[in-house]
């Protein structure tokens, strides 16, 4: 998941003037925010006055007396609500900005803590000003506006593979763990409340069921808080997905328990039947939520299939369908969070195959932006609501709650891990268990659920709210602040920032097939067998429906490979084509180093080109055609310019078509043969170095211009039979194919044959020669035309 925190300025606190300016701005905003309710208070008068004015005017119109025209008037009321919302959002964002400008603070204190403090401050200011604090953490606002973006962001970018691999563990923690927490806390609280026979206090009136309800509210790990803290500590993937997955999936349990206990708290007892119904309800809520999400996800994927002509609104579909999935699930009292997660996870692979690159970026950044703002607002509002809320402080209740939460969590995690480890291959160590237990943070969801309680049914609601807030504060402040040093202290494995290489991808897929095969040989229908079946079903039926055009048949490896290429092409553009890109090791290896059994050429010939996008190629063609004389300066300059052309694909099919057209164009160019009069560059010239660097392992993709080099033509039209791997055969076949296809221009099937040495006729030699020159001039002014004899074919 890309970091939502953005960058951290490493304390370059050189000029404090902009910093002061920012603080001043913040203060002004704060004051404005707190003074506005003044305006709000006085606005009824304004309103009255307006009405009075209107009446007066009406009367006056009758009398036709003239009033001076109001040049400037102040009317707050009718913009009040949007204005205040915008003000809050602005405040939240400015706070975020401010934190990152302060040098060492973000490293020590997690953002969530700071935001709560700011909320406390703002709430305090408002209260000091004597105004009524707006009920900002209104449950409707929270559940319908603030929570969905965060969950959608989490669901859309959920790393599916680790999630599925650990699904059993996650479910155990989410379901059994939450149940255990709820009953343990609720039950023990009730017991504690009952023991105080000497001084009967409020606590005695607390029945069992409200206690259990309270337990179920407080026991759920909160995804917002977990995300906020865990994103900053960069812990390894396994632990992250365990805690985070648990926080997402326990929503179903929370929903069921909450409704169950709330319903029957009034009545006062829960029978066995109700219990059974509760269990059934759990399955309905969970699976129903997932189903609703999946349906909307498929709808979104299907819709995205047709958006090739209206790219601009593509992101809208993603957002709207997901939001509707959430609302529909909430409509039936199903788990909205699970619906959102399911929707995002289901639609993502198909939508990403269909939408344009820009839409993809848009979706990513919008989601990150909304979820970031939401999270900030939630924490600020928590602070405000703390100041404002009517509290009922009860030492016993609060302290017992906090202690019980911790104890329950630890016991739950340890016990469950003991059971889970029996079924896991990669066992969870003690360190892992500690992090999982310590990472069980509570957050705003608990508060909102408590807020929703009806005061008439739950006279001790305020006490509940106080206790919830204290637990939230405790977990976010104490646990949130100390988890980072603890992670470092315990030397827990951190996230590896390794880049996914193409070798890893190839071998991962190979391994999957291998393990499936071994399972089949053993006759065991395991894990891999079903995964393989699902993949095949997906490839055969689902992808055809949901992915537009040719991409539906694209094998995963090719898709991955294209993505990698694209990424590197973009990096190449952004770095101006010269700087070393992502490999850590500067490498001088190029394609020719790995070509087998070729007598070493005297000069570097088949220098691999950087990836050329279609527009770049067009420009290069144009330039070459018009101006055959290339100097090194010219090369460098148009290299830079053409690199700035947009490499962003839109459609691979088109790309391939264009390549083909270029091929045809090349045939025309083959008659020109006096390109280069530039002497060969010395080996260390910057151009040559750049060429070498540009022929990075990743950016090696084939030269489209050369006939002597096979090009990447994804043979989508007719699948090759895997068994006919015989390179000689292939040459013959491809030569026939090339001969047959001289005049054709179809989109899919295209193979370019390397010319065989002994069959080279003069034209062919000239062909290959000029092409080589063509390619070479783009990266490296090569040797003269005379040295063209040793033209080796690219393949043996």
């Amino acid at each position, binding site marked *: 998941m890309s970091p939502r925190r953005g960058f951290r300025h490493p304390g370059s606190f050189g000029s404090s003037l902009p910093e002061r300016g920012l603080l001043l701005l913040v203060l002004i905003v704060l004051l404005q925010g707190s003074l506005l309710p003044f305006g709000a208070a006085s606005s009824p008068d304004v309103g009255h006055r307006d009405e009075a004015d209107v009446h007066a005017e009406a009367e006056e119109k009758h009398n036709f007396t003239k009033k001076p025209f109001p040049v400037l008037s102040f009317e707050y009321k009718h913009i009040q609500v949007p204005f205040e919302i915008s003000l809050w959002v602005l405040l939240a964002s400015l706070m975020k900005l401010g934190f990152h400008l302060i040098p060492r603070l973000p490293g020590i204190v997690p953002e969530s803590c700071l935001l709560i403090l700011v909320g406390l401050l703002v709430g305090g200011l408002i209260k000091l000003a004597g105004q009524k604090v707006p009920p900002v953490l209104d449950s409707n606002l929270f559940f319908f506006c603030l929570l969905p973006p965060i969950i959608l962001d989490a669901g859309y970018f959920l790393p599916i593979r680790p999630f599925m691999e650990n699904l059993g563990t996650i479910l155990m923690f989410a379901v059994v763990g939450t149940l255990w927490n709820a009953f343990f806390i609720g039950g023990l609280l009730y017991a504690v409340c009952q023991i105080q026979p000497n001084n009967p206090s409020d606590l005695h009136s607390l029945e069992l069921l409200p206690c259990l309800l309270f337990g179920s509210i407080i026991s759920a790990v909160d995804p917002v808080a977990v995300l906020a803290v865990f994103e900053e500590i960069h812990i390894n993937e396994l632990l992250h997905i365990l805690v985070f997955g648990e926080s997402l999936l326990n929503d179903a349990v929370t929903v069921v328990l909450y409704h169950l206990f709330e319903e029957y708290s009034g009545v006062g007892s829960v029978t066995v039947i109700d219990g059974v119904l509760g269990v059934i309800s759990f399955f309905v809520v969970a699976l129903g939520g997932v189903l609703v999400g999946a349906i909307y996800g498929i709808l979104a994927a299907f819709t995205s299939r047709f958006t090739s002509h209206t790219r601009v609104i593509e992101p809208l579909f993603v957002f709207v369908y997901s939001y509707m999935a959430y609302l529909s699930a909430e409509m039936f009292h199903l788990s909205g969070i699970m619906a959102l997660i399911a929707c995002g996870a289901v639609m993502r692979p198909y939508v990403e195959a269909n939408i344009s690159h820009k839409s993809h970026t848009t979706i990513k950044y919008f989601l990150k932006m909304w979820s970031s703002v939401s999270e900030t607002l939630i924490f600020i509002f928590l602070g405000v609501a703390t100041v404002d809320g009517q509290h009922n402080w009860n030492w016993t209740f609060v302290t017992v709650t906090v202690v019980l939460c911790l104890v329950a969590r630890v016991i739950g995690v340890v016990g469950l891990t003991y059971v889970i480890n029996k079924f896991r291959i*990669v066992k969870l160590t003690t360190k892992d268990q500690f992090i999982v237990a310590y990472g069980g943070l509570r957050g705003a969801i608990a508060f909102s659920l408590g807020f929703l309680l009806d005061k008439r049914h739950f006279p001790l609601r305020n006490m509940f709210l106080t206790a919830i807030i204290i637990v939230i504060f405790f977990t976010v402040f104490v646990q949130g602040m100390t988890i980072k040093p603890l992670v470092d202290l315990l030397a827990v494995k951190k996230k590896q920032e390794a880049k996914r290489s193409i070798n890893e991808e190839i071998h991962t897929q190979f391994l999957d097939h291998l393990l499936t095969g071994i399972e089949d*040989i053993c006759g*065991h229908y395991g894990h891999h067998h079903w995964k393989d079946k699902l993949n095949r079903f997906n490839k055969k039926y689902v992808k055809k429906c949901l992915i537009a055009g040719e991409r539906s048949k694209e094998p995963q*490896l090719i898709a991955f490979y294209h993505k990698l290429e694209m990424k590197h092409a973009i990096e190449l553009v952004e770095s101006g084509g010269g700087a070393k890109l992502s490999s850590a090791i500067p490498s001088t*290896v190029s394609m020719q180093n790995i070509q087998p059994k070729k007598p070493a050429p005297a000069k*570097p010939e088949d220098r691999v080109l950087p990836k050329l996008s279609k527009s770049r190629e067009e420009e290069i063609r144009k330039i070459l055609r018009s101006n055959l004389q290339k100097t090194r300066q010219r090369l460098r300059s148009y290299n830079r310019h053409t690199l700035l052309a947009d490499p962003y694909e839109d459609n691979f099919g088109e790309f391939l078509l264009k390549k083909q057209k270029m091929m045809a164009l090349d045939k025309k160019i083959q008659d020109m043969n006096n390109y280069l009069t530039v002497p060969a560059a010395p080996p260390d010239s910057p151009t040559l170095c750049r060429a070498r660097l540009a022929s990075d392992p990743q950016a090696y993709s084939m030269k489209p211009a050369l006939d002597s080099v096979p090009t990447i033509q994804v*043979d989508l039209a007719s699948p090759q039979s895997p068994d006919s791997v015989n390179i000689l055969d292939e040459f013959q076949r491809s030569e026939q194919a090339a001969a047959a296809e001289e005049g054709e221009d179809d989109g899919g099937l295209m*193979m370019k044959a390397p010319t065989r040495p002994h069959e080279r006729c003069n034209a062919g030699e000239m062909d290959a020669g000029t092409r080589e020159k063509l390619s070479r001039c783009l990266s490296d002014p090569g040797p003269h035309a005379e040295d063209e004899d040793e033209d080796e074919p690219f393949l043996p």
Partner: protein
Amino acid sequence: QQQQQQQQRRHYEELAHKSGFSTEQIKNLHKRFRQLSGNKETISRANLDSIPALANNPIKKQIIDAFFDKRNQRQDDEVGSLEEIGLEQFLMVMSHFRPPAHKSGEEERQAARRQKLRFLFNMHDTDGDGIITLVEYRKELLSKSGAIGHQAAKAIADAAMLEVASTNAPHMAPDDFYEGITFEHFQQILKGLEMESRMHIRFLDVDTTTMRCGKATS
């Protein structure tokens, strides 16, 4: 009858010692072995070929070859392939898919990873010379996912090879020739994948509650 059972048990124990499975697992695997071989003593390629579930697997041939490959028997660097394999050889190949023991130390895990990577390496290195050349890599990619065309497979194989070369032998002069991927390079490029915990079959785990293998008739 008693004698026979005892003999068999001793045989199992011997096999357990060699391959690392428990006797319970060996019994299950032996049952499966008999099923595959049609109650004969040895399995031939045709037996494995005839498993219907394997028909959809793109690397079916390589998997079957791996069973008959002498290098996977972990005996003294023999090369070549067998015609038929007995239970012991079957188990030796299967032992590559054992998950790491819970309380294994660092060297044991490294040894297990090395062993599994060696198995994978042998699958790619079809001519047994200890190096995966570009030709072999291409061939393997072509067969692996049938829908990839020749050119694309070649391109991807070239890319992968280039990546290996640049990671492991970064400073080659333009005239040097990178022979192919040796086992050390292979280990290097795949070290991020943590083979010892990924390459295993679930039911072959000694510590967890064993699920019976061979329960599906196929």
